[in-house]
């Protein structure tokens, strides 16, 4: 129960998760901070244009981990796919391998990807995005 899932029908597109993720991972001086939650516009059945957010599925058989030439991605004991920034060489092999278009790259060309707030979860804390989700759409699950 460590993966972050989204009950799409209850998402309002309020974007709190996107900024909570940034706040968790960056200092306030990081003006161009990149969130691990990717936000995109959708049009609902009624015609409402709003944001939706998505992030890493933490696949059990993660193709991104398999293709990695270095140890910049690994699966931890909770089943979360963890990026290791120091070991990322910016080759973008993970981008090509990911079927869900998740990997993003920052100003230094390094991978930015959800780590499921693994350290927080290991200490009994919710991932920052789940903690703040205003509607309760984001949950922990399998």
């Amino acid at each position: 129960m460590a993966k972050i899932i989204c009950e799409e029908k209850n998402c309002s597109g309020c974007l709190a998760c996107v900024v909570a993720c940034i706040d968790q991972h960056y200092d306030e001086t990081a003006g161009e901070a990149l969130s691990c939650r990717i936000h995109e516009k959708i049009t609902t059945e009624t015609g409402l244009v709003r944001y939706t957010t998505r992030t890493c599925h933490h696949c059990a058989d993660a193709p991104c981990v398999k293709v990695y030439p270095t140890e910049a991605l690994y699966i931890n004991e909770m089943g979360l796919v963890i990026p290791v920034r120091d070991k990322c060489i910016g080759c973008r092999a993970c981008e090509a391998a990911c079927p869900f278009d998740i990997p993003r790259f920052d100003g230094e060309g390094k991978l930015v990807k959800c780590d499921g707030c693994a350290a927080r979860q290991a200490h009994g804390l919710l991932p920052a995005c789940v903690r703040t989700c205003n509607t309760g759409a984001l949950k922990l699950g399998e």
Partner: protein
Amino acid sequence: MEKYTTEELLQARIPGEETGITVKRTICGFCGENCLVDAYMKDGKIIKVEGCDSLPVANSGKLCVKGAALKQTIYHPERLLYPMKRVGARGEGRFERITWEEAMSTIAQKMQETKESHGAKATLVYAGHPKWFRHQLTELCNAYGTPNFGTESSSCAYARMLANETVFGTTGRGAMPDMANTNTLLIWGVNQMYSRSVTGSKSHLKLEEKGVNIIVVDSRHTPTTDHATLHLQPIPGTDGALALGMAQVIISENRHDMAYIEKNCTGFEAYKDYVSGFTPEKVEAITGVPADLVIRAARLLTENGPFGLQMSASPMVHHINGVQNVRAINALVLLTGSFGVKGGTAGPGPGRGGFKNGFLMNPLHRVDADQDLSHAEFPAWAQLNFYETQVTRIADYMEGKGDYPIHTLIAFGMNHHMWAQPEHVEEAFKGLDFFVNIDMYKTDTCDYADIILPAATALEREQLLMMGKGQILDLQPIIEPMGEVRNDMEIILELAQRLDLEIGDPVLKNYDDYLRMSLMGTGLTLEELRAAPDGLPKPGKLAMRTTEQILSNVRTPSGKLEFVSSVLEGCDMPHHDSLPVYRDFRETLPMDEYPLILCTGCRKPQLFHKRTYRMPWLNNLEESPVIELHPETAKKLGIADGEMVRVVTPIGALEMRLLHDTSGLPGVVHVYHGARDKDINSLLDEKYYDPISGFPGYKSYCCRLEKLEQKEA
């Protein structure tokens, strides 16, 4: 369990002895919601925030998108940290640091000089955001002798409060839906899932889950309308006609509560006659809402009543017919017998808690209020919003186009971009003898001031908070005041002392006095609360109000709920109809030349007026401002998605990117307000306002769109 190194724990901001990270409780303070925050602290600095989940508070563990950026709000490089005085020309933005002593003695001296040369009323005192010190600022105005005290509320909440007073004899605060018991909810023009997303989102979804009939009237699709039983989409500014049409259906189908009306209301016969003309077909022609939906809404509203009416402070009164539109909506509450009853609007139960002399707890009459600058033009305002001046015409007042000129302006958190034609306000600033602005940031408004003072944030001062059902909490500042910032109350009290004036009862000398005064009547002391970090329950039982008490204490002149307003009748002014008469704003506009409706300021989750543009984490989420237009209209005009176009009104023009967006209605141009370089308020007409309330028609003006190549052709 996986072992983490100290460095990894620090990086993940995990609290504990190993990292030295602690968690402190504070209030966000970004808007007026008072969400409690758990701030992660390291070496005296905030390194992360999240919603407090250790107390039974409304925001339980959550912060909205704006609150999540709190770190950037507090440590922003444009924070004003020291008193400054202007050294360049007004508007140029050149300032140099001065001492508090020099700043405060200069301000007191200038206020005294103004009073001696022109009379105290030549000083206008203004409060923007935040609101908590307004009562004491009014006391300062009274002691000094000026009736000219105005606030941002004169284009935010007060017009709806005025409208509510005319019908219910109570303000918006006294007319909330009885959410816990209602079976039918009418939400008119509010999208809580953005504007109050932390507390409003979950409660809205819960109502849906409970099977409450939710009717949402909103000219746009929003997340709230997506979770509604029925959504009506009127053209902005036609809401009054829609409400009158629903009333026509209710009365013609005999769905109204005649026994309730006869017992509690006045003016029904005249109202009934008036609404009889608003047939569903006529309403469709005015509002664009299909006739069958008007009928369905009227039936749904009365099937499982009474109904709770949920509205917001301002969206419905940002039209030049706003007060009457809200009165027409409020009349539905009377018609269905929904006011003061369980499951209805303003239902029985405990009153709203609050602190002594807190914001709007005990509104003060002003000295010489009948000589303030707005009373003659806005007589209903003068009676019902007696505690403040309507300052929509602030530029005129500063230029002496009112009964007399304003020479000195003392402003707390003023943002002149909130008014239509802010350029006029800028010109008027230049003619002032003296201008002080107090703010957290060095804003565009500060650039026109002679002295600017740095205000403390909510995190830099001790605060008292009333939580839920009478639990009171004392919150200590969690960071040292940055630079030389002081809180607004300290500034007000020092100013009073320097002017040799006494304010408060008992007299307030310092901030602690203010906190102690706030607690009077709660049965708790400041010392007790300081020693109880999780707060203390307010002793004694909360006063409960019954339906009988509510309906026998209606504060209108007739003592009854009024379909026909005796206050408006007594005003004897054009447009002050005593019935909730619908006047179409389009008849006053040059719609031939400017055929599209310009609707500004509809909420986006990440934006809250001008200040959000300052925070990169919020501003970077999407391009703003842009023009949002329904593709049907865009295609007719030959404008592609993402094309740069010119939006033109009778006042001016701005170039912006246009996005196709089906959220709004065809024919309506939506633009968010407050951007530094592309302020849509520059295109609004400062004379286009509601003659009853003075509120600008921000949400229903006119415009046309021009393709850019037309300019070159």
